């Protein structure tokens, strides 16, 4: 049927990609576990050390039978993949259910004979087919990897439950609100709450029953290889059926294009936009909020894991050795691990700095720079305003990273000082500014290469540092990466000399970029 094919065309790529990724994750997880822990004794030792780490239980789920291949793979990847597939399903569902109405495409579909409810159900079946693809991929990868057939099929179902439940949740939110973005946001909030509830249940010793309140807790209780049960699958199926029924019921009670809760009231901006500086600030707040939440959550998790990772490092000297080889210092202390974590923040901030110039280039390519420049802003002022906003945003992100790590560490009971965390975070800012400066230079001198330079330079530098450290590459190559010159703060004091050099390079590159920008043609397209 036409409608089915049309919906399938919008989701098959994502479904195929995530099915492939899930299969690869499962296959490589099995291989990694078998090679790292070849003997029964080593597996038992691993299981014992993991069982002592509540943060890991919160993050990935309760450890059940992790001294077996099936138990390990279920614990380490089961919940993670369920969440990812859930995320995919809710994005796909809101896209075809809500997005098509936003663009007006749905009207041409509904212009045919199909009733709105029938269109909804058909489109949901298509999302369900995508989940089926994931089920097959996971079951196949587990079976080929040598796990029992029955358990492999159940493991595939476990991962697919995320897609089914959160696809159904998205079907309901798509009826309630009037834009794809809001529908996805609401469904995403439900997913986030489900995850937090599951993490809380598994991370603490006495709240385990909370796991029965979230679909992710149900999925965990399928226990495909260690104690298989069909009850949770039935629960997921029942909940999804109720949600889909509710969505179909609500669909008949609203107009196409509208949401049951009505359109959002327009928020009035606090301050009117009267200058390019105000414009840039307003344009970047959305991205800043998104990046801040990502960085805050990631660093909170890092901080939260600190205590357990340090314990794990003590238990596993082989891993500890490898870390020391890459980074040149040990992480069997809280500050050691945090220094490592903020090395990743350096990369994140560098990419963020680059992204600011990529968005400047997008403004130019769309012709919006022409508009403000001809209206009366000088080119220098336009670019400096962008750079100023980027600087403020980078500082804010660094602060958020420090806050997240500090809060996470202290919640888990590791003692990390707030000042230490802030110092560690701002220690990596000069490296981010260096890459930001290079992006400004590219934007000024080679505008069409802005994206490659902005993201490529930082990625290559980070790869050099990590790969070269592992394989014992020549010193000059490692020295080429600015990340290598960041002192592991707070484990060691700040490397002031390197910091000043990075800042000087950043400043010089930005000045050159600005000069070049004033001398070149503005290029749209």
């Amino acid at each position: 049927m036409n409608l089915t094919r049309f919906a399938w065309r919008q989701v098959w790529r994502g479904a195929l990609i995530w099915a492939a990724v899930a299969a690869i994750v499962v296959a490589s997880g099995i291989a990694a576990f078998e090679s790292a822990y070849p003997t029964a004794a080593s597996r038992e030792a691993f299981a014992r050390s993991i069982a002592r780490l509540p943060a890991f239980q919160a993050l990935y789920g309760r450890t059940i039978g992790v001294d077996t291949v099936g138990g390990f793979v279920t614990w380490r990847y089961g919940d993670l993949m369920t969440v990812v597939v859930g995320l995919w399903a809710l994005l796909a569902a809101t896209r075809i259910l809500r997005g098509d109405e936003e663009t007006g495409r749905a009207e041409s579909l509904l212009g045919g004979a199909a009733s709105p409810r029938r269109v909804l159900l058909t489109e949901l079946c298509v999302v369900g087919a995508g989940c089926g693809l994931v089920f097959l991929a996971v079951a196949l990868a587990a079976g080929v990897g040598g796990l029992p057939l029955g358990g492999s099929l159940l493991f595939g179902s476990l991962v697919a439950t995320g897609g089914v439940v959160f696809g159904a949740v998205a079907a309901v939110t798509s009826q309630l609100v009037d834009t794809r973005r809001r529908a996805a946001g609401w469904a995403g909030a439900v997913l986030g709450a489900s995850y937090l509830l599951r993490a809380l249940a598994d991370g603490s010793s006495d709240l385990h029953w909370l796991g029965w309140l979230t679909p992710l807790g149900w999925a965990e209780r399928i226990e495909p290889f260690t104690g298989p049960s069909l009850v949770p699958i039935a629960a997921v199926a029942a909940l999804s059926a109720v949600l889909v029924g509710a969505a179909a019921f609500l669909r008949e009670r609203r107009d196409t294009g509208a949401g049951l809760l009505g359109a959002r009231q327009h928020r009035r901006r606090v301050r009117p936009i009267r200058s390019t500086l105000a414009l840039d600030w307003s344009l970047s707040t959305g991205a800043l909020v998104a990046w801040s939440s990502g960085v805050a959550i990631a660093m909170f998790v890092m901080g939260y894991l600190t205590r357990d990772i340090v314990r794990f490092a003590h238990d596993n000297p082989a891993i500890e050795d490898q870390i020391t080889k890459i980074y040149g210092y040990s992480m069997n202390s809280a500050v050691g691990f945090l220094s490592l974590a903020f090395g990743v923040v350096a990369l994140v901030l560098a990419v963020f700095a680059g992204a600011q110039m990529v968005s400047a280039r997008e403004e130019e390519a769309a012709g919006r720079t022409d508009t403000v420049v001809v209206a009366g802003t000088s080119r220098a002022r336009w670019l400096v305003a962008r750079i100023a906003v980027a600087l403020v945003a980078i500082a804010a992100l660094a602060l958020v990273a420090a806050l997240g790590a500090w809060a996470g560490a202290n919640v888990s009971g590791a003692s990390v000082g707030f000042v230490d965390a802030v110092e560690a975070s701002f220690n990596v800012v000069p490296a981010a500014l260096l890459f930001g400066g290079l992006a400004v230079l590219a934007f000024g001198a080679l505008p069409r290469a802005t994206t490659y330079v902005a993201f490529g330079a930082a990625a290559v530098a980070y790869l050099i540092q990590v790969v070269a450290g592992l394989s014992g590459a020549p010193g000059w190559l490692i020295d080429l990466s600015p990340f290598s010159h960041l002192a592991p703060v707070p484990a060691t004091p700040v490397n002031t000399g390197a910091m000043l050099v990075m800042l000087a390079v950043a400043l010089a590159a930005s000045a050159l970029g600005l000069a070049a920008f004033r001398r070149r043609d503005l290029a749209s397209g």
Partner: protein
Amino acid sequence: MSGREQSGKPIETAGLTKRFGSLTALDGLTIAVERGEIYGFLGPNGAGKTTTIRAVLGLAKPTAGSARVFGFDAWSERQDAHRHLAFVPGEFAPWPTLRGHEMLDLLGHVHGGYDAALRVRLCDRFEFDPTKKGREYSKGNRQKIALIAAFMVRPDLLVLDEPTSGLDPLMEIEFRRCVEEAREQGQTVFLSSHLLSEVEAVCDRVAILRSGRLVEVGTLEDLRELNSQEVEIEFAAAPVPDLSTVAGVQDVEQEGNRVTLRLRGSPNELVRALAAHDVRDLDIREPSLEELFLTYYGSDGAAPPRST
């Protein structure tokens, strides 16, 4: 500064040339736009109209020659030049997250002030709803933002690059009225277009550009001479009348009951001649600029072949 302003013409180019690699987009263009006139800049797509405008606005640096705006060099003194002009691009790109009124605020303030009453009037006349977000506006409504933003600052010079693309006919009439009013206020308008009829309707003087070179500068009268229509007539029955002797008719071609011809000036005589016959179908259309160029200037080597 004001002394130079008095002396400078709104737009003056001398041997303006722009090359992109081996491609010459603009080849020695010399034009002068006088104060208070509405200057049409006509040419088919790809003739170099937008390239000229980008040089005049200081967005692109001339490879050779120069452009001046009110006496200011368009490249090296572009900010002084920008104070006196407003620009409407062919495809205005709104900020997706900003509302219409926010964009008008921004552009008005960046220009250094605007006529608030005029802004309200313009929104009214163009039936523009300023409360939507940039991404929600249709093509025509996006153009309205740019048009309102340009007219409301009352600039000495309006540079309009195919400004009416996407506007419906009623709004096009409104646009023409705005241009007329600008003329009455003593403003200068530089209107680039590939639509003969648009330029004919509002312009005092017209420059015709083709393949980066100036073909002709003339008054409206000269342009009228250019403007001919293509007529296609289908007769009901066989003996088809000879129309080649009718006043204003040229290039008559016959194929069965079907006659095509080119008509200059008033259609009066032709209509009279047809009245005595049984006409089944009559179609009159304005030829494209490209067709006109082929008719009046020959293929000139570089011209593309006739597409039909």
